[in-house]
């Protein structure tokens, strides 16, 4: 690999890790919420997050990505997934790749190898964001309280992902399965979103899954 880019293993082999919502003590709260919760929240924490930039119109780019990940580049406002790996369109030349915790360094190297010689960018942003998974019959109502984007299945089917306004900030909403949604939130805003979600779910009953 060239030394044009400074790439290194940023995650320690063994060290105490605190996800963005570590301070909320979600593990201690698990199972203690409402028995018939309208909304269940789980932090999918400490995953590997890589921001990928490149030229979507260049077949070599799409080919390289496919070669490294086995995934097609998703088109606008969608995400594709295979197992624990997902690839989401963020902008015309930008994608978010989420991989199992700790594999991000190896995946980045594999991608860089497959895209050798192309003008691309891969940036490890694992420490800066986290995923919140929301399930339950009242998730849509909570989303409707929070964002002006239309979350009705006719406009927001499973497989769609949208960066949008949420409460007084922004995040990415991912509709991953019929009753499952994910919020991609930035670390520094995570406390605000967590407070907001607790408040917005209060009337429906909230449960936490570890």
């Amino acid at each position, binding site marked *: 690999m060239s*030394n*044009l*880019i*400074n790439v*290194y*293993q*940023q*995650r*320690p082999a*063994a*060290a*105490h*890790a*605190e*996800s*963005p919502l570590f*301070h909320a003590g979600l593990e201690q709260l698990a199972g203690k919420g409402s028995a018939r919760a309208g909304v269940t929240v789980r932090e999918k924490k*400490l995953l590997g997050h890589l*921001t990928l*930039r490149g030229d979507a119109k260049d077949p070599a780019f799409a080919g390289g990505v496919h070669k490294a990940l086995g995934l097609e580049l998703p088109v606008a406002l969608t995400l594709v997934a295979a197992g624990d790996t997902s690839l989401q369109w963020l902008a015309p*030349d930008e994608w978010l790749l989420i991989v199992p915790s700790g594999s991000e360094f190896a995946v980045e190297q594999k991608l860089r190898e497959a895209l050798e010689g192309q*003008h*691309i*960018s*891969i*940036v*490890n*942003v*694992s*420490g*800066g*964001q986290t995923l919140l998974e929301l399930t339950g019959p009242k998730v849509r*109502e909570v989303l*409707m*309280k*929070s*964002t*002006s*984007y*239309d979350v*009705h299945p*006719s*406009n927001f089917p499973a497989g769609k992902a949208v960066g949008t306004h949420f*409460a*007084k*900030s922004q995040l990415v909403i991912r509709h991953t399965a019929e009753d499952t949604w994910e919020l991609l939130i*930035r*670390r*520094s*805003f995570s*406390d*605000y979103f967590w*407070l*907001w979600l607790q*408040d*917005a779910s*209060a*009337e429906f009953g909230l449960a936490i899954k570890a």
Partner: protein
Amino acid sequence: MSQVNRLASGGRVDRSQPLTFSFNGQSYQGFAGDTLAAALLANGVDIVGRSFKYSRPRGIVAAGAEEPNAVLQIGSTEAAQIPNVRATQQALYAGLVASSTNGWPSVNTDLMGILGKVGGKMMPPGFYYKTFMYPQNLWLTYEKYIRKAAGLGRAPTAVDPDSYDYMNQHCDVLVVGAGPAGLAAALAAARSGARVILADEQEEFGGSLLSTRETLDGKPAADWAAQVITELSGMPEVTLLPRSTVNGYHDHNFLTIHQRLTDHLGEIAPLGMVRQRMHRVRATRVVLATGAHERPLVYANNDVPGNMLADAVSTYVRRYGVAPGKQLVLSTNNDYAYRVVLDWLDAGLQVVAVADARSNPRGSWVEEARKRGVRILTGSAVVEAAGSKRVTAARICAIDVQSHKVSSPGEVLDCDLIVSSGGYSPVVHLASHLGGRPTWREDILAFVPGEGGFQKRLCAGAVNGVFGLGDALADGFEAGVSAAAEAGFKAVSASLPQVAVRLEEPSLALFQVPHDKPTARAPKQFVDLQNDVTAAGIELATREGFESVEHVKRYTALGFGTDQGKLGNINGLAIAARSLGISIPQMGTTMFRPNYTPVTFGAVAGRHCGALFEPKRYTAMQSWHLQNGAEFEDVGQWKRPWYFPKAGEDLHAAVARECLAVRNAVGILDASTLGKIDIQGPDAREFLNRVYSNAWTKLDVGKARYGLMCKEDGMVFDDGVTACLADNHFLMTTTTGGAARVMEWLEIYHQTEWPELKVYFTSVTDHWATMTLSGPNSRKLLAEVTDIDLDKDAFPFMTWKEGQVGGVPARVFRISFTGELSYEVNVQADYALGVWEKIIEAGKKHGLTPYGTETMHELRAEKGFIIVGQDTDGSVTPDDLNMGWCVGRTKPFSWIGWRGMNREDSLREDRKQLIGLKPVDPNKVLPEGAQLVFDPKQTVPMQMVGHVTSSYMSVALGYSFAMGVVKGGLKRMGERVFAPLADGSLIEAEIVSSVFYDPKGDRQNV
């Protein structure tokens, strides 16, 4: 006295559920299903308040949103106070506490009433403008007393215990109003498969169907309504919003709906429930089925309690089983009003007479009344009501509408209830919110919604001037079909219930009833009851030259306040038109603005209050900061540790201690909030050359450099250190507050100006946590927790290294914002707290002290380092900052700001320039922001030559010092400037270099 006016049977109230409530301190009983107004009328409460200006006793007039008088204060505790609740819209609940908003000491014996009787003559429209205008400086005094004497409810002074929120809705068809037309429209649209929202302000869906005497398919109309509601509630794409007022129609078919979720249950929402919700709806099509308000006739003393609207009395009788009187007189100009007569007779009560302004009415309902023996006086109207606290009689005269004259002395008939109907005014408010002017239809004597224009809406039913029940149903269904079709859904065919066919005759244009005396001399004829506007007042306004309807409105207060002209508007402009000798359409109508009815502030605020008022951003070390007693400072949305006080320390003591610790030992700062942007690509270096003022071509891998960023005008807008991580890879840092702005700036320039440059930017602000070790002991301390070679030659100033810190992979930058030996440790944020704690532990024997932003600010100022936004204000060039060394004057490609900073004005020698200020008295601290002058003896206004930008008392220096900008300051070293302060004192200071501490930089280079 227990429900004296409650009928023995009938109504939709639940007589098995009696509810106790209180009004003005007295306890009453009503039934579940009552509105507060229905319950008050059931108990024979005639007077609900005193009028705004004349303090006349007032009773309930209407049964819905148009009620002008029964605007009450609700709440048993201070926190639960709700002002301006219309009793006609408030469901009764057990324990409801209500009181009048006007009237002291009580509504029944009001001292103001006596003053009002006297004062009335002295208080024509414009009274306040005319009387209290001069002298101007007394206005504040006047205002205090005027406010006390007038006004409606009061706001609570305690904290609101309830919660409120928003719901963002999207639909194909929003139907406003669930009366006959609205239900039919919703049904048609829903059956076609569209996403439908049906909103209605009342407790129950159905509107007039709940109280009409008409039948559908031979059954009570309410049965059909129930059947439709059942069908709609079973459809997954239909959202039903009862108790929800569509209050605003905004641009792009965005409507706001105020839903009252628990106001029918109690004054405070039950635990876990949201009290009110604001629905923010984006609708592809809107069907307005807002109905119509009955228009009262304007006659003398028409405000005495016992004067009511015809429809409202029908509603009280049929829907609530309440008869607000015994002997009824009706004054009307139309057929529909005869329904109240039949309803009254059905309830077994006495109809004294009907005065019909038309000469020979023969409609079906008229004939039915006639057949039942009702005395009908044609060509006549109620000219004057008698009574003070309750109607005792009505004087009915023959009138000549054409010449606006009374043509007979008339007869006085004893009665306790006068109901009037001057026809219907369609509720055109929502249709007008975006500026569409209503149009006058002479055939129905009403304004109907004008062209929708940019509103994508249809109107149906009474709002469209379609008043008959069968026609309204058909009109509604058709509108629902069209709306769904326009939203892309297939039409369904109509299946509507049958309505009996009747002969209906047109009404006669009658608004103000003539009186024997001229309007100005006759007893008061009220047009707008809430604002105490009389027919005489409107005539006076036109005589005084107010010809535009908007001016008449503002001069008289017609249609002001919470009323918004619901009852009085049309009558008022008809009177103005007659007075001016023009037609109603020539007169035109005033416009309506959101909101249709008042909305609580809670619903407007939603959840954006308290802890959720504004996002608060935290770093990965926040829990440690809290445990260690940090005080926090807001920097943008970030909460940054400001200082870490020990027991007994104030800000100054803590900062003095923290400063000394950094200068003499070592300190640690959480610098995670600085913006960080990862830049990759073969053209990254060239891009930096173009966005920074200085040159980047020769920055080697492993090195870092300070950069200034300017806007096109050559003025500094951000700064920071950028490091070269690899040939095609840089890490840029920005100010905390400028992070998002700079990121956007880079993207804009890349995408619009230089798309050919191969470079990508990615924000990594949140990914990296940054801890700064600063002070002479920092090397020794860091050495204990890292495997990086910290030797001064191996790791010199302005370079970076990769290695382990506290067992975690890190990038360490040797850069300094304090002027001391400093290392910035960057690790993935997930691991930062552990690393921080290891450093703190290792730092104990090195005198490690955590410090906050205040200490950082002071230390950097001692070194003359600027803070963008504090020492700059968007009007300073790098040269103004004496930072010409940071300008790449020979860079080959022009860069942002170069042209701007070379304009003639940017090169003036007497521009304000950044300098240091040393107060002559070393103990005096210049206030930041203080203006500076050269000559303190000049007369005010003095010529100001600059101001103080940063100012501190330095422990390390032993004296106070400041930075500031002074005209031509860089050539004035050693000269004196003066800061004249607001308290009259003066601080004298010497202009010196802005670098106070270690000017050669020995300490940071060790």
